């Protein structure tokens, strides 16, 4: 589904953020990307739907090359859902309109159809009653669930999560993770940048560990948690799992 091949990215000639990153996400697979901050994991996931440009290598989604000037990027992005660390709901629009905007303007769905779809997804993430409110009236956890619903409204073939719980208060993390777990169990193709190792243990098929712009470890979940091959991954794991 997602093929990342020898991707290199520089912010400046002397500062390389991604070094020869190669991996893939198969259809229906859930891949968790972890690593210390500044390791390039968020940058990598943003490269997947071309929110960040990269200089070298290639990424293809469902056979379409992302870094090709002939690719219709808006169309490609509309097929890949993305959830951000800071939710990024549109504050001037009601919750239901947040879910309808792209359905109507990008997919060309009618207003009625978009609203019906939006309400169904709000119900699914447990926020049916909030449809007429504005984002600022919702808690962080609720906002992030709306953001997931907004991405799902586009009927995506894959979902990208960029640290979806990092900006949340601890008691709100689980309500967001629950939605993500359900999604994973339904067979959604997911690439998730997160520090939530509990989530990774529960639903991930593979775990990618990044450090200083490199993919250091790319292993099946059980191998990764059982006995990581690299020393850096071992240190990372022992640090975050010690509490």
């Amino acid at each position, binding site marked *: 589904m997602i093929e990342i091949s020898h991707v290199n990215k520089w912010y400046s000639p002397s500062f390389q953020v991604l070094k020869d990153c190669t991996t893939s996400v198969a259809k229906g697979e859930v891949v968790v990307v972890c690593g210390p901050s500044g390791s390039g994991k968020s940058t990598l996931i943003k490269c997947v*739907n071309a*929110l960040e440009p990269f200089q070298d290598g290639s990424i293809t989604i469902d056979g379409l090359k992302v870094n090709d000037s002939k690719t219709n990027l*808006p*169309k490609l*992005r*509309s*097929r*890949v*859902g*993305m959830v*951000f660390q*800071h939710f*990024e*709901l*549109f*504050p*001037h629009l009601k919750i239901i309109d947040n879910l309808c*905007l*792209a359905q109507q*303007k*990008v*997919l060309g769905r009618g207003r009625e159809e978009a609203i019906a779809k939006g309400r169904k997804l709000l119900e699914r993430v447990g926020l049916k009653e909030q449809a007429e409110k*504005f984002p*600022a009236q919702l808690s962080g956890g609720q906002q992030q669930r709306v953001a997931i619903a*907004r*991405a799902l409204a*586009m009927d995506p073939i894959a979902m990208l999560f960029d640290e979806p719980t990092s900006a949340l208060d601890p008691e709100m993390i689980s309500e967001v993770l629950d939605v993500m777990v359900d999604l994973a169990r339904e067979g959604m193709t997911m690439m998730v940048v997160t520090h939530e190792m509990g989530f990774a243990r529960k639903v991930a098929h593979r775990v990618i560990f990044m450090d200083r712009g490199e993919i250091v470890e790319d292993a099946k979940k059980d191998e990764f948690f059982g006995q990581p091959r690299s020393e850096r991954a071992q240190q990372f794991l022992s640090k975050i799992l010690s509490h």
Partner: protein
Amino acid sequence: MLANFDFDVIRRSLSYLFIDGMTFTLTLTALSATGGLIFGTLIALMRLSGYRVMGWIAGLYVDFMRSLPLVLVIFWFYFLVPYIGQWVTGSSRPIKVGAFASSLITFIMFEAAYFSEIMRAGIQSISRGQPAAASALGLTYAQTMRYVVLPQAFRNMLPVLLTQTIVLFQDTSLVYVLSIPDFLGAASKVAQRDGRLVEMYLFAALIYFTISCIASYCVRRLQSRIAIIR
């Protein structure tokens, strides 16, 4: 001292002052603000577009307009537009442009420079995650601007835009250099006809003061309401 004044002149000229004069002033203010906002937004988008030449042209335009006294622009524009029109259309004689059309175009162009800076600040106040989220949903650059960035920029900047419009309301009185009977022009005509300069100019000042004060008060209330919403 007041005994020498004849305030009845105001009562007698009320309909001329307000129906002719103030209507013109308010029409010019509203049309200039609307036109200035539209062109100003386009200029702001040009400056932020990332295309160096477009940004450079827009920047030059803004600097140029902001470096000239408004009254001079009104004056020059009134005399130049007929010749520019002649040059553009290729006609044999200078084209006729009425004083209203000329002053309206001048104000739109002049205000566009100021509104563009306000809108630029407004657009830059939107966090970069917003356009990123819109792009990630598949919206094009134009759709992102139209549905996500500009509505928020406009809402955030509404108090500043309205304050600038109040300044514009006062500035429209400068059309007196073209002998147009706006509110001040009408007051001035009556004053000179009846020899009642002090009364009429006092009254005109009072009206400008009252309208601007009330408008400023409304803007401040709006500002605190917007602050609550955010």
